[in-house]
């Protein structure tokens, strides 16, 4: 079987789970596509997963109420072993990329990380992924009875529902006592459309000048055209915006239809998070800013003049 560790939040199956199922079906590996749902009170999630997967395994236990790398790794490895999985898939989220390596070590399996393409190959699977701050596409191959794969969010189209409810089975697990104790949670509530799901993103850099200006220009334009809001690290470090909006090497990777960068210089660490956007638009007063080299459309000008004009033009 192909084992998919389902991602879900607040009782909703995440889009990434349907993307993993699509990647599993495209991989050409034999066996039923099986979703493992870990959590507490996850009956609804299991029902949603059953619309996409051939079968669903459910571990509904209080200890699984919140994600923990040691628990998720132990659960995934046990089920993979019992079911003789040929592939184990996790999301390419922070958590997915945190526990997948532990699963690989437990199973003594190869690990293909954050893949954007997956296909059957001689004795195993071949995958593509980005490296060198997303400037290079590399092809890797792995073989063995089982291969662990994390799947980059947004790289695969989500699978369509099968039109049937796959069967569900409860599973038994032996879980360790987790050693990392969570003593507080700081959830970032982002009011707008999730960055990784937005079709259009407006991002502000240090060039917008201040936190107030960010609200006026970046949020103003985003609201006028129905876009998500992103930020550079310089802006996050300055405390103008929450970390959840940071795009780049140490922030989010996004791939929208259009990425509109306001007062952003275009440092490689930033480009590594948005360089795959379909269209890149840059507004910067410095004609030599590196961002223009990767831009499809650019305006050389002051954001304080151009952006208000854009907002009123978009509104009318």
């Amino acid at each position, binding site marked *: 079987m192909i084992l998919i560790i389902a991602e879900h939040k607040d009782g909703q199956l995440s889009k990434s789970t349907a993307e993993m199922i699509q990647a599993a079906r495209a991989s050409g590996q034999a066996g039923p596509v099986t979703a493992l749902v870990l959590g507490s009170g996850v009956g609804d999630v299991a029902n949603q997963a059953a619309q996409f997967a051939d079968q669903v395994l459910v571990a509904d236990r209080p200890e699984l109420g919140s994600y923990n790398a040691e628990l998720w790794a132990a659960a995934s490895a046990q089920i993979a072993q019992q079911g003789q999985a040929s592939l184990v898939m996790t999301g390419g989220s922070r958590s997915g990329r945190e526990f997948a390596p532990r699963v690989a070590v437990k199973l003594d399996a190869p690990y293909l990380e954050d893949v954007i393409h997956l296909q059957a190959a001689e004795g195993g699977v071949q995958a593509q992924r980005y490296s060198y701050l997303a400037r290079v596409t590399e092809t890797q191959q792995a073989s063995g009875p089982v291969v662990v794969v994390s799947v980059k969010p947004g790289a695969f189209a989500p699978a369509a529902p099968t039109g049937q409810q796959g069967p569900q089975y409860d599973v038994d697990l032996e879980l360790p006592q987790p050693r990392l104790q969570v003593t507080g949670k700081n959830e970032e509530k982002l009011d707008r459309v999730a960055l990784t799901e937005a079709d259009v993103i407006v991002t502000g850099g240090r060039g917008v000048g201040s936190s107030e200006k960010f609200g006026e220009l970046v949020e103003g334009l985003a609201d006028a055209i129905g876009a998500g809001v992103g930020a550079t690290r310089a802006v996050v470090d300055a405390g103008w915006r929450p970390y959840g909006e940071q795009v780049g090497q140490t922030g989010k990777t996004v791939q929208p239809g259009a990425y509109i960068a306001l007062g952003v210089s275009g440092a490689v660490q930033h480009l590594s998070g948005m360089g795959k956007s379909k269209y890149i638009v840059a507004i910067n007063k410095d004609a030599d800013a590196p961002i223009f080299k990767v831009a499809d459309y650019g305006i050389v000008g002051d954001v304080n003049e151009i952006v208000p004009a854009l907002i009123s*033009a978009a509104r009318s």
Partner: protein
Amino acid sequence: MKILTLIRQVPDAEARVKAAGGQMDLGGTTMVIDGMDEYGVEEALQLREGGADVEEIIGLAVGPAQTEDAVRTALAMGIDRAIHVETSGYLDPIAVSKVVATVAQEEGVSLIFAGGQQADWDSQALGAATAERLSWPQATWTNDLALSGGTLTGRHDVDSGSENFQLDLPAVVTTQQGLNEPRYPTLPNIMKAKKKELRKDDLSRFGAQNKVQLVSSEIQVRQRKNQLIDGSDPQTAAQELLGLLRNEAKVLN
């Protein structure tokens, strides 16, 4: 206690990367210590300077011969000694974790720092894989850390924001921006570092087998339109840009 801090050498972010014949060509590329690893080196030093009972800070590098330069940087920043396991060619992070875990056990360390994401392979796997090999817990993407007795407290990023955590040693911590500001090696410290121990070790004794084959690496540059609009008349420029986004790119209604 002893701290092990991992050191990797990667192309300088501003350097152009080249590939030829399906392989990366790093000849002539400026190489530096991975910025993510510098946070780990700095944090180890700050824990000691802050009064934690740190007996020794050991650097470990697994990489080609020239990685020695990055190790020297870490020694000049202030770590006590270093071990360099020389490799030729690609060794995947799961395989590297075997070397790291073995050294950690041999040296009796109880805290390991690893960079949150590698700037060459874009991998986040080394810290977690090492923790699993040692049967230790891990805190990844850590941006705040304190040590009191044998207990770490800190904050780290998770899928939807961040968490405060508490963790008893031994543990693996992966580092990132916000944790600290890595110091620059001063000239006297660069001189002193030349006398510090840098032991070479032999990869063959670790039984670290690659499980992933690197088939090819290619640079794919998307051709961009690079169409520049004159911004001297903001109204006209705005109209023109919206027109392009609506009619040519078709990303706006």
